[in-house]
């Protein structure tokens, strides 16, 4: 799942990795969409994190469809 923080709360793109592996068109389209959003937001300065239960949070520089949950946060600046 990809969660993108925005003024609307978080926008989500969800896919089933098992279905992606068997070539399900809907799941594959969802992954492609998530990858597109990931690249777009990263280009705007967003930071991506891999968040998985029981594991330390990791910063991500490249999209990984096998990640259980990716959270994208907007660029931050000193206030």
């Amino acid at each position, binding site marked *: 799942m990809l*969660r993108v923080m925005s003024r609307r*709360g*978080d926008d989500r793109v969800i896919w089933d990795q098992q279905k992606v592996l068997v070539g399900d068109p809907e799941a594959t389209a969802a992954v492609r969409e998530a990858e597109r959003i990931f690249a777009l937001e990263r280009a705007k300065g967003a930071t991506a994190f891999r*968040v998985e239960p029981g594991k330390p949070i990791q910063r991500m520089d490249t999209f990984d469809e096998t990640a259980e949950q990716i*959270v994208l946060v*907007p660029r*931050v600046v*000193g206030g």
Partner: protein
Amino acid sequence: MFITQQVLTTLGWVVLALAISPMLWLLFQPYFRGLSPAERRASSLLRDMLTAEQCHQLIWRGYLEIPSPSTSQRVYRVPRTKGYVLVIEHGQAVMRLCIQPVECLPDADVVVLHKLMIEANEEYYLQNANKYLCAE
């Protein structure tokens, strides 16, 4: 005479209502804001990200303490709503940090943002924050 008294009473109530309405708004605004779909979604993400103890701390103390991954004895105290992040070392407040997203986010999302940045991108977080030393 009676009419004058009634008018004065009414005016008195109006003045009283005008005086207390900003206070009531300030008091209840967070609850109304929490009803918005954006805040509800952000709160859902926040609950997913925090442990039960962290949720409890945020609700009852109004802040979330995040230990520094790089420096032992350093804790970041993130407020539940907008405000400075306090850096505490050896139990003493040493610095206030001001850092915010370029996009306006619900308060709960801002707490998650601080948590993610501190736990997985602390160096960048500190580089970008404006720092104010705490006076003794």
